[in-house]
């Protein structure tokens, strides 16, 4: 394996790496906020919101990620403005992932026994108080493992930015490999950069999960 590729092109790798990190972090925050809102829509007693939530999830998670990104990349020009590849890709990534996160959160909330809601409500707590003090703290324990999976998927899926020139890790790797003709070696180092992100994340999720498990 030719380590000179890594050393010679380190600044390019690094630029791509930061692009991937930035896009992932932004998409992670965005998808979590969006996913939590959609999850709440899906369980509220308000019919209209429930239908919207269900429609959103079923539509978004059943089309390819690339297509979602295209919507934000090519869509705006139809409306008379443009988004650069990084922005469009990151928004697309957040929207796509939010559908899966919404389902994970919803499943966690639904898995909390019904008696918990009844006990809290019958003691005079409001719906919101019950959600924040009783239901969500229990749901989070059930949601962490699937949420961790979604975040790892998100980081890997961020490679879709390459296709819309989003200046991520894969995008720079493509240009490195065309320059060096050392395709295999180039991408081996790319894999290492991805692992630097995903392995600690999945380890962290496991630790957090175990810590909550131990508590009660």
């Amino acid at each position, binding site marked *: 394996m030719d380590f000179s590729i890594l050393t010679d092109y380190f600044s390019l790798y690094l630029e791509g790496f930061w692009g991937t990190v930035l896009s992932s972090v932004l998409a992670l925050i965005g998808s979590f906020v969006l996913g939590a809102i959609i999850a709440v829509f899906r369980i509220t007693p308000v019919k209209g919101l429930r239908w919207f939530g269900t429609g959103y999830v079923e539509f978004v998670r059943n089309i390819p990620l690339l297509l979602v990104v295209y919507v934000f990349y090519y869509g705006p020009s139809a409306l008379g403005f443009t988004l650069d590849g990084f922005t469009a890709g990151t928004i697309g990534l957040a929207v796509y992932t939010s559908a899966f996160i919404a389902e994970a959160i919803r499943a966690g909330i639904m898995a909390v026994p019904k008696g918990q809601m009844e006990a*809290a409500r019958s*003691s005079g*707590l409001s719906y919101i108080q019950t959600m924040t003090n009783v239901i969500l703290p229990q749901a989070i324990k059930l949601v962490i493992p699937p949420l961790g999976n979604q975040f790892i998927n998100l980081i890997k899926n961020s490679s879709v930015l390459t296709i819309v020139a989003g200046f991520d890790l894969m995008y720079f790797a493509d240009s490195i490999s065309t320059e060096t003709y050392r395709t295999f070696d180039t991408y081996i180092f790319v894999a290492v950069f991805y692992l630097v992100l995903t392995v600690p994340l999945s380890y962290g999720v496991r630790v957090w999960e175990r810590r909550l498990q131990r508590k*009660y």
Partner: protein
Amino acid sequence: MIDFHQVEKHYGHFHVLKNIDLHVSEGEVVVVVGPSGSGKSTMLRCINRLETITSGGLTVDGITVNERKTDINKLRKEIGMVFQHFNLYPHKKVIDNITLAPVKVLGQSKAEAEKTAMYYLEKVGIADKAQSYPSQLSGGQQQRVAIARGLAMKPKIMLFDEPTSALDPEMVGEVLDVMRALAREGMTMVVVTHEMGFAKEVADRVIFMDQGQIVEEAAPAEFFASPKEERTRTFLSRVLSH
């Protein structure tokens, strides 16, 4: 204190409660018995609007339960409830289970709520478990915590929905003892149960329900010695013969 007036409830096509008329006075202990599916738990759950009624009138402490302008959270402060499966919050310590509603609903300070919580834990005999999690307690202990949790709100009424049905037989006694003491202190109680001994000894009045109707109601001595209705006699012969 609690007034059912011609209350009807339907679940789709299923007629769960039929023409329920029931009055519970302050300080009274009413025990509701009857076969499974007779609607006794549903009737109990209507009192704090965990179930809504289809028609008829229901007032608690002078407040109409099923009315748009009724602040249900305010009414529920006055009504403690104990469930068959305890429904303690597994992620909170015993003490925090008890202080949650007093702090959030009554606006008590944490210290004040903890003092009250310890008083009631003492009363139900498990003050030493204050810092434990519910999963570390036996069923009987969990149910006593649930009773303390209800009492900490200083309610005017306590509802018990088959409080001993999920317990191992040797733990039934400790929970009934707590309820007995509560009844002696003059708490208004509505108890759905299969414990006929408890009904006989503690109830001011026993209600027998079957197929969504109140079939018979009487003082316990009379209810158990000379039931009027055929259905009551059949039921009692089945539950008392073993």
